[in-house]
């Protein structure tokens, strides 16, 4: 299985980079230097484009001029055709970086008598090579000679000699060939002569959607990826999506990114998601998934980072309008160049083609945040088994680039549970954070709920929150967990009101009790005072009695003394002064 290697592992075989995105990775550095490579495929699969890009990039980026010898199109046609890829052949020809030679051969004009060889072709090619000091050669499509020359015996011998000759001259060459039938790779068996490296291109249509694929069938003396890789011909040339990077070695930054929704960040350990992680937002239709995506992009732009939204449901104008209605204004970011929205129909091309395109745009725009809305639309035409590896490629790629990604996925069905979670299992295993949105139907209304199903590497809330969209934006509100269901929407509001009045009642009750207590205390105090007063009164009474009795005793004593005096007249004139009793 492991076929992908570093160029460093095979130092013995020198390679010439093609400059074609992805192809150099698959081949571990490019095509074999100084040897011919056969590129074959059916009509319209991009052979000429690949060969041309190899040549132009060689001339422009790697300082290796090249000769393009064409047997089918003429120079003017070719120049016009590749202008769509942004290559200006006229200029390159003037700069002597590229030489074009159109070999035309008309069977009707030619009569054959006796022996001949194709020395003329060698001379032409040799002359072109010498004129510009070429290092690269393309022969497109040499098989046209089979139609033009009746004697195939001579032709085959000469082609064998030609490829030998190219090798001797150390030309890194691409020979294109039509796809053959049955076991034949090419129609005329060119693979017999060009055996160092064979690349096949394919243009397949499944379920009405076409995908271009490339495969390195053979690479003598070098390890290479043997899988089929989807590729794309865009205005930036070819790009091949090298996948299934078997390594899982991307860095894991611990920096956290806000999702743009404070309460959601709170649910995700208080700080949001990790930079470079992948977030899946899945849910039924109308649960507010897209708005989370938009908010996420908006938050990135607010931080001054670039965000890229791939939209497969709405046009970009529609997204801008709709998001404005919930208080997310994306238009200024678009104007500032911080935000790009790429809207396309999912059925425009195959999933892989889409991924190549995404790959391309991400490479060109270099965003910090990517939102895909929704991936489920891309998946309609493929089975899970097909979709998984392709998505894995994309996620791997984004992680390698430290781009935080948010994938929106639409699930089937309404408010049931279980089924939707299952339907996402395939994709969710690739995701670091999984937010699940659902509708709850209760009490005559539909409300949105959000919860965090998983979030790798951080504490996260196990609570459901109600997801509220208004023209002021997005908010998450605590729900009331009841005995057997959570309360949302008006039920939540009613419950809140109910709880508020209950609290009010309780408060009044407490006050009443306190008042009662105070009154009671007052009564007791009054009683105490009365008792005290009674005590005091009694005490006064007692004192008075005592005083009375003392006086009485005194008086009695006085009286007895007086009487004794009177009776005895003895001891002095202590006459009674006090007349009081």
């Amino acid at each position: 299985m492991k076929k992908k290697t570093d160029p460093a592992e095979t130092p013995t075989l020198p390679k010439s980079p093609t400059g074609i995105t992805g192809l150099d990775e698959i081949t571990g550095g490019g095509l074999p230097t100084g040897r011919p490579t056969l590129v074959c495929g059916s009509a319209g699969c991009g052979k000429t484009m690949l060969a041309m890009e190899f040549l132009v990039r060689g001339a422009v980026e790697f300082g290796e001029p090249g000769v393009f010898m064409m047997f089918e199109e003429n120079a003017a046609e070719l120049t016009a055709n590749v202008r769509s890829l942004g290559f200006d052949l006229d200029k390159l020809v003037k700069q002597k970086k590229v030489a074009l030679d159109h070999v035309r051969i008309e069977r009707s004009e030619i009569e054959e008598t006796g022996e001949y060889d194709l020395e003329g072709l060698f001379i032409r090619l040799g002359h072109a090579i010498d004129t510009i000091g070429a290092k690269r050669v393309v022969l497109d499509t040499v098989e046209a000679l089979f139609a033009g020359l009746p004697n195939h015996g001579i032709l085959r011998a000469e082609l064998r000699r030609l490829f030998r000759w190219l090798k001797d001259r150390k030309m890194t060459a691409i020979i294109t060939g039509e796809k053959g039938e049955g076991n034949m790779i090419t129609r005329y068996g060119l693979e017999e002569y060009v055996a160092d490296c064979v690349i096949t291109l394919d243009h397949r249509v499944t379920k009405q959607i076409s995908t271009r694929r490339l495969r390195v069938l053979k690479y003598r003396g070098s390890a290479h990826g043997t899988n089929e890789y989807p590729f794309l011909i865009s205005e930036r040339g070819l790009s091949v999506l090298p996948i299934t990077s078997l390594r899982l070695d991307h860095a894991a930054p611990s920096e956290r990114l806000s999702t743009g929704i404070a309460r959601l960040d709170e649910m995700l350990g208080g700080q949001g998601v990790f930079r470079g992680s992948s977030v899946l937002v899945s849910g039924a239709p109308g649960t507010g998934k897209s708005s989370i995506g938009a908010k996420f992009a908006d938050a990135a732009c607010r931080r001054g980072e670039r965000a890229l939204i791939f939209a497969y449901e709405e046009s970009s104008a529609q997204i801008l309008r709709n998001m404005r209605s919930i208080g997310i204004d994306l238009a200024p970011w678009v104007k500032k160049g911080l935000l790009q929205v790429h809207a396309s129909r999912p059925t425009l091309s195959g999933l892989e083609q889409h991924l190549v395109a995404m790959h391309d745009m991400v490479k060109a725009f270099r965003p910090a945040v990517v939102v895909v809305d929704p991936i489920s639309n891309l998946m309609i035409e493929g089975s899970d088994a097909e979709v998984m590896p392709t998505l894995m490629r994309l996620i791997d790629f984004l992680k390698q680039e430290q781009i935080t990604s948010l994938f929106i996925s639409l699930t089937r069905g309404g408010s049931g549970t279980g089924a939707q979670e299952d339907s996402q299992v395939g994709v969710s295993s690739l995701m670091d954070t999984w937010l699940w949105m659902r509708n709850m139907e209760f009490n005559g209304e539909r409300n949105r709920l959000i919860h965090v199903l998983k979030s790798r590497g951080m504490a996260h809330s196990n609570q459901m929150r109600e997801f509220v969209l208004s023209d002021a934006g997005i908010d998450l509100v605590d729900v009331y967990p009841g005995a057997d269901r959570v309360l949302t929407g008006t039920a939540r509001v009613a419950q809140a009101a109910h709880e508020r009045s209950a609290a009010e009642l309780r408060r009044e009750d407490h006050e009443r009790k306190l008042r009662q207590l105070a009154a009671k205390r007052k009564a007791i105090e009054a009683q105490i005072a009365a008792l005290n007063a009674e005590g005091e009164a009694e005490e006064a009474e007692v004192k008075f009695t005592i005083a009375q009795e003392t006086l009485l005793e005194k008086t009695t004593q006085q009286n007895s003394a007086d009487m004794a005096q009177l009776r005895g007249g003895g001891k002095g004139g202590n006459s009674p002064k006090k007349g009081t009793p």
Partner: protein
Amino acid sequence: MTKTKTYELRLYVAGQTAKSLTAFANLKRICETHLAGQYRIEVIDLTQTPQLSAGDQILALPTLVRRLPQPIKKIIGDLSNEERVLVGLDVQPMKD
């Protein structure tokens, strides 16, 4: 019947190889036999002037090109088959 026509012929070769020598000898003989006095032969050695190969779309060597009369005709090979050369040049064979 074709007395008024002039045949302008160009023979492309690559150096003094056996094939080119044979071709030239064959051409000379055929022209002398059937087109005496009405032809002109120009031999182009592409090893000397490779830039001339593209003009007449030369691929195989030797190639004989009938530049005039129009249209251009090409005969490839060492011209060993006289009959086919005459057909290729569109020349009526002289009948003795």
